[in-house]
């Protein structure tokens, strides 16, 4: 960790007219270009001199990048939708898992400018939105020199702070299915203080069957591996189990088969292993309780 922050290094600056223009600017800059969305992760990197791009491409003024829409039961967020905007939308639309997560992203000042596209592209292994999009089974629309493609959340994260995006590719929007009426969704995390980076977090979408068992479930974990991951062992164990606290907790214990937690200044790997089952179980129980209510 660098000792202190200074002022950003020099860079050229361009405001992208539209997504193809942004891609063209990045391509021209070869590997020297960086995308500026909200800047809430990028500018600290610049201030710590951890990156020294030759060109910043501002995508914050591209038409449609701040749009929020529901299309065929799925939420579509433009890449530059802010955490604060998601927080407001979620409150107005009873989207519990989004409310849970949005309140935990940084602090209020960061949420005014930070964006979901920026968060996913930054690929912090402890990013709340990563746990949410994994749990919801979300996808990113990506534009690059080779054209438009779709990347599922499961395929987005390649390593710590590294996505599978090719050079000059940008996320243009994020789509995620909203939980159905027979499903419940929740996000929980453990952090040294509220608003600190998560040391362990779990996003859960759980569909209940009519005989009170788990019909289907997706669990997205953050802070517990080099990238955000799915908890496949937990998911496999849960399908068909009863929706009791005991059964859910037992399945959550299997999380240790899925995770390879880092140890750092925020928490040791041992601590993360200690709390992982509990935070997973809590998210499962809240999701189960919500599946029994009307809200999603």
């Amino acid at each position: 960790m660098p000792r202190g922050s200074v002022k950003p290094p020099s860079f050229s600056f361009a405001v992208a007219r539209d997504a193809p223009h942004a891609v063209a600017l990045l391509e021209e800059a070869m590997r020297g270009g960086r995308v500026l969305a909200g800047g809430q992760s990028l500018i600290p990197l610049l201030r710590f001199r951890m990156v020294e791009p030759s060109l910043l491409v501002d995508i914050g003024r591209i038409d449609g990048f701040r749009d929020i829409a529901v299309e065929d039961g799925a939420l579509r967020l433009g890449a530059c939708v802010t955490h604060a905007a998601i927080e407001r939308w979620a409150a107005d639309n009873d989207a519990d898992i989004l409310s849970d997560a949005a309140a935990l992203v940084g602090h209020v000042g960061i949420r005014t400018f930070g964006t979901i596209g920026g968060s996913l592209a930054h690929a912090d292994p402890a990013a709340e939105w990563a746990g949410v999009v994994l749990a919801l089974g979300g996808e990113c629309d990506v534009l690059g020199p080779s054209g438009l493609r779709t990347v599922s959340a499961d395929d987005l994260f390649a390593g710590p702070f590294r996505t599978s995006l090719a050079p000059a590719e940008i996320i243009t929007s994020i789509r995620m299915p909203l939980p159905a009426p027979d499903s419940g969704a929740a996000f929980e995390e453990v952090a040294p203080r509220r608003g600190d980076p998560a040391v362990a977090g779990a996003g859960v979408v759980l569909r209940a069957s009519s005989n009170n068992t788990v019909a289907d479930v997706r669990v997205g974990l953050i802070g517990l591996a080099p990238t955000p991951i799915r908890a496949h062992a937990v998911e496999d164990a849960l399908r068909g189990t009863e929706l009791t606290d005991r059964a859910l907790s037992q399945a959550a214990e299997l999380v240790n088969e899925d995770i390879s937690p880092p140890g750092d200044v925020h928490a040791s790997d041992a601590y993360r292993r200690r709390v992982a089952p509990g935070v997973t179980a809590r998210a499962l129980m809240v999701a189960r309780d919500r599946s029994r209510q009307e809200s999603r």
Partner: protein
Amino acid sequence: MSDSSAPGVRRDATEALDLRLNVNGENHVISVEPRRILADVLRDELDLRSVHLGCEHGSCGACTVLVDGEPAASCVLLAAQVEGRRIETLEGLALDATMRALQTAFHEKFALQCGYCTPGMLVNLCSMLRRQPKPSEGEIRERLNGNLCRCTGYQPIVDAALFAASAVRDEMEASG
């Protein structure tokens, strides 16, 4: 002089951007390198010294300003990002009735000692009380997550916020 935020314009690192900034109700044109941070531009070009530099990476909240009425960490914004937006610092909020109630409350409840975190606290709380006239203690504490204080232990700040919220509501009732 072209609008620096006009899409399509590309400025080289050595070229200054001519930024049109609206700060505390006044329009300014500031000519700065693209890399210039909003907090530094407010302090050094506009002499708005209430904007304090603490951690300079977005964690401490001492640099909090309002952008279109919402709190933002000005040390992790480029000045270029807020062209066309409405920026307010403590200097510009000084005559706001809610801000004056907060300042009175901070004074009466001993909510500052060194005063370094204070502008950020006040700016954040002012924007909160404008939208949430009756916050709970828990909501205030959560709202102030990103505003660090090394002196007071936070309780006097929370007390002052509750006191100010109550004073503002009483004032609304009295004049309503």
